[in-house]
């Protein structure tokens, strides 16, 4: 090893001494972040979510250069992006499908946390930051979907904003304020564009807090037990390379949809321009809101329906305290594991109910599933945590592997 430092090395150290940017990143997601050595592929999805966020911002900014946020021009400007702007079709299809994939990735990420008990002490605030990110994503995607100003954009926006009118007394003035008029109209479109541009950058800030909170206790792992220093390996290169491999798989699936089925996740009615005087016979939100839409419609009372819908997400904030078991990973909790998958299936069925007209069988099933959704959190989770006898935990991550090898 030569003792003489190169001029580049010196320049780098001079700069790092004044603004330690590279060290900061290296500490956060590099060789100085020790991660448990047993992380499985479900731990890829945080990285993937970050990747999709960057993808959304990059494609979004380019779209915004050709998009016109005016009710008379928005729809045509999106059609122009699709037909005339160079690669406009690609950029828009990446952005529209990117939103769907963002939610796929985040849902897997959230269910990962629920399965392996990542929300439990000491990671409650990390969990909270995640839920706030999820709420911000929902708001962003909702306002983004309004921008092309199709029939679903318009009527989706009408139904969602009207939910606030369920608030007693101040509901109506709030809705008028949200609209900037007497209905969803040009002022609404304008402000939604401004906020749709802003919120992703707020999400970046929230992601920084999320990662910060992650670094206080470090990553959880599939066994859910504390990882001793001997059971940790540097994030870079071990997990960076694993994440990049996962990214490759993700991109194959993502671009298969972007190129061959670009409209499969959207609704054809959004290619019809918004008409404030004609409500489509069957309004459905984007697929990622369907379970919550089903909960809204399951309850025949306006205020209670809206409360249940928002409550179904807000309840996640108190999950760390509803769960009375101190064992994190479902691997060691046979009864919880069963109910976890039941809850997961219940969510899928709710999603299906949300896509159907709210009558007959789908309505009845939707009511049963809505009941189960809340029953799971309020009764199953606390009671199972209290009654269940978990399987014995391994002494350490290393010992669990060595035992299996014997």
């Amino acid at each position, binding site marked *: 090893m030569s003792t003489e430092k190169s001029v580049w090395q010196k320049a780098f150290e001079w700069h790092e001494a004044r603004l330690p940017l590279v060290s900061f990143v290296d500490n956060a997601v590099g060789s100085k972040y020790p991660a448990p050595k047993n992380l499985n592929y479900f731990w890829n999805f945080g990285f993937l979510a970050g990747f999709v966020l960057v993808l959304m911002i990059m494609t979004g900014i380019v779209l915004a250069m050709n998009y016109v946020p005016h009710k008379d021009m928005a729809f045509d400007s999106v059609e122009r992006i699709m037909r005339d702007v160079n690669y406009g079709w690609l950029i828009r299809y990446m952005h529209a499908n990117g939103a769907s994939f963002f939610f796929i990735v985040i849902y897997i990420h959230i269910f990962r946390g629920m399965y392996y008990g990542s929300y439990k002490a000491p990671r409650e605030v990390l969990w909270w930051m995640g839920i706030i990110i999820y709420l911000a994503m929902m708001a962003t995607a909702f306002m983004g979907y309004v921008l092309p100003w199709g029939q679903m954009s318009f009527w989706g926006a009408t139904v969602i904003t009207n939910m606030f009118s369920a608030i007693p007394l101040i509901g109506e003035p709030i809705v008028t*304020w949200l609209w*900037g008029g*007497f209905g969803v109209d040009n002022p609404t479109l304008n402000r939604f564009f401004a906020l749709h541009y802003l919120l992703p950058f707020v999400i970046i800030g929230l992601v920084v807090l999320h990662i910060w909170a992650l670094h206080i206790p470090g990553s959880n792992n599939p066994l859910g037990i504390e990882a001793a220093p001997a059971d940790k390996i540097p994030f870079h290169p071990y997990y960076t390379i694993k994440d990049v491999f996962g990214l490759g798989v993700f991109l194959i699936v993502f671009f298969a949809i972007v190129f061959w089925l670009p409209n499969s996740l959207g609704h054809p009615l959004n290619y019809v321009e918004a008409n404030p005087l004609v*409500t489509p016979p069957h309004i459905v939100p984007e697929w990622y809101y369907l379970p919550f839409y089903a909960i809204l419609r399951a309850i025949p009372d306006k*205020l209670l329906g809206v409360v249940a819908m928002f409550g179904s997400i807000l309840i996640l904030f108190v999950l760390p305290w509803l769960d009375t078991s101190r064992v994190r990973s479902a691997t060691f909790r046979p009864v919880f594991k069963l109910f976890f998958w039941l809850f997961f299936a219940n969510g899928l069925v709710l999603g299906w109910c949300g896509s159907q007209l*709210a009558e007959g069988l789908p309505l009845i099933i939707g009511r049963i599933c809505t009941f189960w959704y809340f029953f799971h959190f309020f009764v199953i989770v606390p009671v199972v945590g209290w009654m269940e006898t978990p399987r014995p935990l391994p002494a350490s991550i290393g010992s669990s592997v060595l035992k299996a090898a014997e």
Partner: protein
Amino acid sequence: MANMAPAHSPAPSGADGETRRDFLLHTTVAFGAVGAGMAVWPLIHSMNPAADTLALSTTEFSLATLQEGQAITIVWRGKPVFVRFRTKEEIEAARAVPMSELTDPQADDVRVKKGKEQYLILEGVCTHLGCIPLGTKPMDQRGDFGGWFCPCHGSHYDMAGRIRKGPAPANLKVPPYTFLDDTTVRVG
């Protein structure tokens, strides 16, 4: 400096242990909060309907060509207003409904103008989540009570636009309107 260490200075304290310094701190924070609120108000209020939006709030139209049994939709503030020329039987049916059967009890005659009971004028916006109920066009589905039916989440309205079934909490709103002459109406 002595006055930077309040714990050591014999600051006069009231009966509840509050010092003059606490009082100053609390009043400063209170004034700061009020000031911040006042500074933010213009930003919030700028999102309420602007003067030109409010200026579009009246519409005039004529009922001269509307026949008994027909209904039309006019546009007021960018939203539909339903105008229905009700038949004698429809008015009778609407009047006959006992108040106890209504979710949002309102007699038929308070929802129309005296002497003009045949003209039912309503905001065509479902009081649930804002969809436009069907029932104005001749071929439309009109729901179980013969008035309007909102397809979004299944609300049924009767011949006076009153909610009878479904998730909507209130009757279809009656917009403010006046008869300028026998057949001309101004809404807004």
